[in-house]
C-alpha cells in the first residue's frame, strides 16, 4: 500500500499561507455548492432531459478522471482507454443478459478483467516511449473492435449489445427516470475526485509525476519507473471499467465503435485535456464545460436542422485549449484564482 507523504516532505503546491488557505476554503465551498446543486436537481422544476444531460456529463467526467490518472498524473498518453470502457460495458452486459448476474457484481468482474488486460497491455507497451506507447494503445483498441465484432453470440457483433430492460429495478440497476443515475454518477465523480487528490498527495503520486517529468532522472532518484507506470495504468484501468458499468446501465446498450472506437477514446480524454491535465478539478470543470457547450450547440443545431454539431464543438474546444491554454482551464485560466488551493 502506498503511503501518504508527511506534510513536511510533500509541501504544498505553493507556500502555505493564509491566502492559500482562503483559496482552498473557497474552492471547497464552490465544490460543495456545485455538489448540492446537482444533488437537488430532481427536486427542482427541471425536466428529465436536463437531468439526463447532467448524468451524461458526470459519466464523462468520471471517465475523464480515470484517464487523468494515467495521462495527467502519470504522463502516459493512452489513446486506448476505450479498451477498458468496452471491457467494463460488455462484461456487465453479457453477465447480465446471458447469466442473470446483476450489474452490482458484473461491474467488479469487468474491473478485474480490465486489470488483467491492463497488466498484459502494460507489460508489452510501458517500456515504449512517447508516441510509440500511444500508437500501441491505439492498436489495442482497434484489435478490440475486431474481437468484439467477431464473437457475435456474446457481444452482438457489429450491432452491439442491448441490456434486457426490467423497468425500475434495484436488482438490475435500472430505472425509467434518470434521477437514480444522477446520484450514482455524482457519487462516482466525488469518489474519483478524492482518489485523484489522494494519489496526488501520496508517494505513488510523487513517483508518477517524477516519471512524467523525466524518466531517466526519476530512475536516478530511485523510482522504479516501470512499476510506477504499471501501477498508474492499473488504477486508471480499474477506475475506467467501474465507471463503464454505470455507463452501460445508463445508456443500456453498447457497440464496438462506441466502446473501443477512436472517437470514443478521444472523447474520454477531453474533460481532462480541456479542464487541466494532472489536476483533481480539471476533469470536473472540463467535462462540465464540454457537455454544457455541446448540449447548447446541439439544441441550436436542431433548431436550424443541422446535426452532429457537438463533435465540431469538441474539436474547436480542443483546438482553443491546445493553442491558448495548454494547461487547461485550471492550469491556465484559473491559475491565479486557484494558486495554493488543491487543484
Amino acid at each position, binding site marked *: 500500500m502506498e503511503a501518504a507523504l508527511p506534510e513536511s*516532505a510533500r*509541501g*504544498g*503546491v505553493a507556500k502555505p499561507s493564509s491566502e492559500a488557505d482562503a483559496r482552498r476554503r473557497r474552492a471547497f465551498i464552490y465544490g460543495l455548492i456545485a455538489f448540492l446543486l446537482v444533488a437537488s436537481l430532481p427536486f427542482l422544476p427541471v425536466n428529465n432531459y436536463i437531468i439526463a444531460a447532467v448524468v451524461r456529463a458526470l459519466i464523462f467526467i468520471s471517465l475523464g478522471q480515470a484517464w487523468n490518472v494515467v495521462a495527467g498524473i502519470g504522463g502516459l498518453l493512452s489513446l486506448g482507454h476505450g479498451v477498458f470502457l468496452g471491457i467494463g460495458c460488455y462484461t456487465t452486459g453479457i453477465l447480465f443478459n446471458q447469466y442473470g448476474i446483476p450489474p452490482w457484481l458484473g461491474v467488479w468482474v469487468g474491473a478485474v478483467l480490465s486489470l488483467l488486460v491492463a497488466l498484459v497491455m502494460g507489460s508489452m507497451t510501458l517500456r515504449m516511449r512517447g508516441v510509440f506507447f500511444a500508437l500501441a494503445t491505439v492498436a489495442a483498441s482497434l484489435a478490440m473492435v475486431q474481437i468484439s465484432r467477431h464473437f457475435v453470440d456474446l457481444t452482438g457483433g457489429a450491432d452491439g449489445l442491448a441490456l434486457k430492460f426490467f423497468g425500475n429495478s434495484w436488482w438490475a440497476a435500472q430505472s425509467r427516470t434518470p434521477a437514480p443515475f444522477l446520484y450514482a454518477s455524482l457519487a462516482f465523480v466525488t469518489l474519483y475526485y478524492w482518489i485523484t487528490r489522494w494519489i496526488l498527495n501520496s508517494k505513488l503520486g510523487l513517483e508518477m509525476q*517524477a516519471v512524467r517529468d523525466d524518466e531517466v*532522472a526519476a530512475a536516478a*532518484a530511485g523510482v522504479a519507473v516501470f512499476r510506477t507506470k504499471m501501477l498508474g495504468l492499473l488504477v486508471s484501468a480499474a477506475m475506467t471499467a467501474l465507471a463503464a458499468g454505470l455507463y452501460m446501465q445508463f445508456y443500456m446498450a453498447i457497440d464496438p465503435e462506441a466502446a473501443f472506437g477512436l472517437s470514443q477514446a478521444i472523447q474520454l480524454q477531453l474533460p481532462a485535456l480541456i479542464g487541466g491535465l494532472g489536476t483533481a478539478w480539471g476533469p470536473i470543470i472540463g467535462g462540465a464545460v464540454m457537455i454544457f457547450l455541446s448540449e447548447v450547440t446541439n439544441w441550436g443545431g436542431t433548431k436550424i436542422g443541422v446535426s452532429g454539431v457537438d463533435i465540431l464543438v469538441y474539436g474547436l474546444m480542443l483546438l482553443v485549449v491546445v493553442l491558448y491554454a495548454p494547461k487547461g482551464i485550471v492550469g491556465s485560466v484559473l491559475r491565479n484564482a486557484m494558486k495554493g488551493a488543491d487543484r
Partner: protein
Amino acid sequence: MNAPAVALEVRNIARNFGGVVALRDVTFSVREGEVIGLIGPNGAGKSTLFEIVSGNIRPSGGRVAYFGRDCTTMASHLRRRAGMCRTFQKVRLFESMTVRQNISVAASQCLPKGRDLGEEVNNILAQMRLEHQAERRPSELTLADRKRVEIGRAIAGHCRLLMLDESLSGLTHDEAEHLIDEIMQLNRARGITVIVVERVLSVLAAMVQRLVVLHNATVIADGTPSEVAHDPVVIEAYLGTKQKALR
C-alpha cells in the same frame, strides 16, 4: 589500520555503438571516502562510462562492482537505492514539482527504515542552503541553485557514492568555489565517496586526491593531480604542453 573498502571497481569495461568504439578495456577503482576526478576531452568516453556505472547503459564487456558486489546488470533505480547517486551533465530536475518535492522523491525511495522522511528533507534543504527556495519550482532558480537541488536530490535518503557530471560547468568562479566547498563538506561530514567528471583539469586539481584520465575511449593515466599533470602521455595526448597543464 585497515585500508578503506573499494567503493567502486570498474574492470575491463568496453562499449561499442555499432562500429564506434566508445570505451575499451577501461579499468580503475575508487576507495571509500576518496574524491577522484575523471577527465578527458569531448568524445573521450566520460559520459558513456558514467551512464554504464549508473546503470543507464549496459556495457558490451567488463564488469562494475559496488562495494564488492557485482552490479553490472543491476537496474539504475536499485543502484540509487543502494547509495550510488548521480547528477547529470545538463541539469535534470522534475520541473512541475517544488524543490522540496524534488528532494522528497529521492528521499522517500532511499531513506533507511526508522529515519524520518520530513526531517531528512529539511536536513538536505539546510545542507544545500535551499531552505528559502524550498517551495519554488526549478524554473524560478538560478543555474547554481538548480545544480544544488540536483545534488541535494542525489544525496537524499542514502548516498555512499556520488557521481557528479560536470556539475561545475556554467557557473561563475565564486559559484563554482561555493559548490566545491559544499561537495567537500559532503565528503567529510557524510563520508560520501565522490567522482567528479570534468573536462578541465584546473577545475579539479585543488579538489580531488586522484585523477583518472580518459582519452580515445580508454584510460591513459591514473594518479595524483601532480603526477597526471607531469605524465608525458597525458601532456602529449590531452593537455598539449606542461605549462598549459599547470596553468
